[in-house]
């Protein structure tokens, strides 16, 4: 990806900086990765001319790089503004939260404090709040434990029945993936199909998800095989 013409065109719009941690004695900035919030490789962020992180990467594609840099530009413009519209404030809250500059509680408080947001901003705010709730529900849970996964999946299913559905990608994935586990535990074929359908809508077009969806189709087939026959059938 970093050798493509698409990336080269993108690189001309920014200052492309590469830091290679070598562990050679005396290397410059041996801890720069950690200083910029990285825990593993590769790590990608946008920095301003002071070296402050102004955006983090959500999607590792050239389009994702562009979105990150746009977010960084928006952040610079918005954070410098004295008076922001509700839409601008909502955008800034999202950016600050994405960059881990504010915690969920502060993000929630600022989103709820918007003055006279219009319908579009209200919807954006509500989507953001649902995302925070989904992410909050995952915190502290050991999701390697099947029982924990089913329990969280049940919570998400209850929210869905009550009309709460995340739209932010970061929340859609765990919301419906854990719902699959709950559906499987309950032997609920219809629910499994609906949750899988939602995941397909959101991510099905991405080539890297092919194996994931194939695996889920396998789970669904097993669930259907084990399902009791429909009552009153075969008349």
């Amino acid at each position, binding site marked *: 990806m970093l*050798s493509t013409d698409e990336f080269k065109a993108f690189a001309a719009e920014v200052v492309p*900086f590469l830091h290679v941690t070598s562990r050679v004695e005396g290397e410059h900035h041996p801890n720069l990765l950690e200083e910029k919030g990285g825990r593993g490789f590769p790590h990608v962020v946008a920095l301003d001319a002071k070296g402050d992180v102004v955006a983090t990467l959500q999607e590792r594609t050239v389009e994702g790089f562009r979105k990150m840099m746009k977010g960084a530009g928006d952040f610079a413009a918005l954070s410098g503004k004295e008076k922001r519209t509700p839409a601008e404030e909502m955008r800034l809250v999202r950016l600050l939260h994405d960059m881990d500059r504010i915690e969920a509680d502060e993000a929630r408080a600022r989103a709820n404090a918007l003055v006279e947001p219009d319908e579009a901003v209200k919807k954006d705010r509500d989507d953001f709040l649902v995302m925070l709730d989904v992410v909050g529900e995952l915190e502290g849970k050991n999701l390697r434990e099947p029982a924990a996964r089913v329990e969280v999946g049940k919570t998400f299913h209850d929210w869905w029945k009550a009309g709460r559905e995340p739209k932010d990608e970061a929340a859609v994935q765990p919301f419906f993936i854990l719902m699959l586990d709950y559906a499987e535990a309950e032997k609920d074929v219809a629910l499994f199909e609906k949750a899988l359908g939602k995941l397909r809508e959101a991510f099905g077009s991405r080539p890297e998800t092919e194996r994931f969806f194939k695996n889920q189709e396998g789970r669904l087939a097993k669930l259907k095989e084990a399902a009791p026959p429909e009552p009153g059938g075969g008349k």
Partner: protein
Amino acid sequence: MRVALASGLAAILAAASAGTAAAQDAQDALKKKYEEKIAEPWVAHGGWRLDYEKALEEAGKSGKLIFAYFSRSYAP
């Protein structure tokens, strides 16, 4: 006793030298890996700035933001 001390000291110095030599070999290997990494085509021909301070200076002068990509050479 002096002989025992001298041979003990010689053993310590020999172990230290062997250790120092091994450490130097390890450093040389890390340097080689770094050189190989930055010689890879995507790095060598990608227009990457490898100097952090110069990248900051360029960002300040050009008004552009920095796209910072962190990688490593000491392991795959």
